[in-house]
């Protein structure tokens, strides 16, 4: 136990700072044309609208900076937000762009050295940290914005349903279909496809299904194939949950 925590041990801990790693999609720009970027992004988003909706984004500007091309950061951010993306940080930008970013509440990642001559008067590290913490706020907000989904139509082979919250299905899920949720999954009909709950790592997520015939079930990345299901569980009402990194199936 560290000294700090012993000192405040009789107090209730309100804040804790830990280093944690998020998987955030990076937008690597090789053009400075906002129109072009917007068009190509729209195409990408159309392929998986639910996946990109309110997704945090890191903007990588290395290539442009190396080519000494400066993109209009303000309109880029505006465009991204209009596409329901949430830019949270930029990387590899020029000094001027960095200060614009901070003005816009976007964090600056300065791991890589810029082409510009090194500036003696560096922005104090502390300031940068506070900026970063502030700009993470919108991210946590989107995570807590739970989006539950209710499906009434049969889920056919090859269809894939993703939701950030809980997923409830009132129609059969056929072989080759995939249900993916960051929260729990409930199926009140024959379940013959795949169900993956807690895909962002929530080990408390559960899968409930009234008629277990699934090909595969998974919680927070721990999965089990139908081959390994106990025969007595077939076509039964069950709860699937994680206990000490082990996937358990319990008859209800």
């Amino acid at each position, binding site marked *: 136990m560290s000294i700090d925590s012993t000192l405040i041990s009789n107090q209730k801990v309100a804040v804790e700072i830990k280093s944690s790693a998020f998987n955030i999609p990076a937008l690597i720009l090789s053009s400075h044309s906002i129109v072009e970027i917007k068009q190509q992004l729209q195409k990408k988003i159309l392929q998986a609208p639910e996946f990109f909706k309110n997704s945090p984004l890191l903007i990588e500007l290395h290539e442009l900076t190396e080519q000494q091309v400066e993109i209009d950061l303000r309109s880029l951010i505006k465009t991204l937000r209009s596409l329901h993306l949430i830019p949270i940080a930029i990387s590899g930008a020029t000094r001027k762009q960095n200060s614009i970013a901070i003005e816009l509440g976007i964090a600056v990642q300065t791991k890589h050295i810029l082409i510009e001559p090194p500036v003696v008067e560096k922005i104090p590290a502390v300031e940068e940290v506070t900026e970063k913490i502030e700009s993470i706020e919108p991210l946590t907000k989107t995570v807590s914005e739970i989006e539950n989904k209710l499906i009434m*139509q*049969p*889920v*056919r*082979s*090859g*269809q894939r349903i993703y939701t950030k919250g809980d997923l409830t299905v009132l129609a*059969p899920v*056929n*072989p*080759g*279909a995939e249900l993916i949720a960051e929260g729990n999954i409930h199926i009140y009909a*024959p379940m*013959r496809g795949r169900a993956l709950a807690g895909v962002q790592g929530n080990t408390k997520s559960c899968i409930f299904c009234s008629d277990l015939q699934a090909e595969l079930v998974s919680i927070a990345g721990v999965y089990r194939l139908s081959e390994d299901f106990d025969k007595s569980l077939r076509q039964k009402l069950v709860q699937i949950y994680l206990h000490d990194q082990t996937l358990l199936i319990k008859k209800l």
Partner: protein
Amino acid sequence: MARIIVVTSGKGGVGKTTTSAAVAMGLAKKGHKTVVIDFDVGLRNLDLILGCERRVVYDFVNVIHNESTLNQALIRDKRCGELYILPASQTRDKDALTEEGVGRVLEELSKDFEYIICDSPAGIERGAHLAMYFADDAFIVTNPEVSSVRDSDRMLGILASKSRRAEKGEEPIKEFLLLSRYSPERVKLGEMLSVDDVQEILSLHLLGVVPESKSVLNASNSGIPVILDEQSDAGQAYSDIVARYLGEDKPHRFIDAEKKGLFGKLFRGK
């Protein structure tokens, strides 16, 4: 406005073209002006099944690329004046089909015809996609075996999400199930999926069951749609299917094994 019907399945060899030809002929014989389009560009077959292969001059791809008019490409059936065929090109591939071109041809046909039947190629790629994209109704042709059922299920998912109706948020495509090559005797022996087994996965409106029959192969080889063979069980099954599609109430046949009476046994012994 014409009603656009796609005959599709995902899997190949289940009887899409046989069904397209039979249903088109059935509708035309009931007095509805019908056109049947072969979307299987590069693997043209519909003209053979309908017995007009020697009358093909221009084709669907020519019309799409404005190399001929629609009237030049349409072939009128010699047996039934209400039936027209728009054949596929044998020398091109599916990339010759464009969404804009297919849309334009269908729109033009809609003015003159009551029913447009799109005979889809197998698979879920471009040809199959364009065949179903503009559809109002879908006939899902399925054989009573697991891979066909799964492919049909996949196709149904695509109809529900990738069609024009789905993209525009309109009323979804009406889906009908046609179970073909069905053999009640083999179902009884447990060698074949039953109607109920198939419906457990697909749960669709069953338009009819077409029994496995020698008459289908005979009809195909001689270029006569099997629906014109009124003596055959497959021909009768297709007549029922057309009638049911048009709203007539016909009890389902060919689902259960025929009970062999004394005469049946005697004759079978011969």
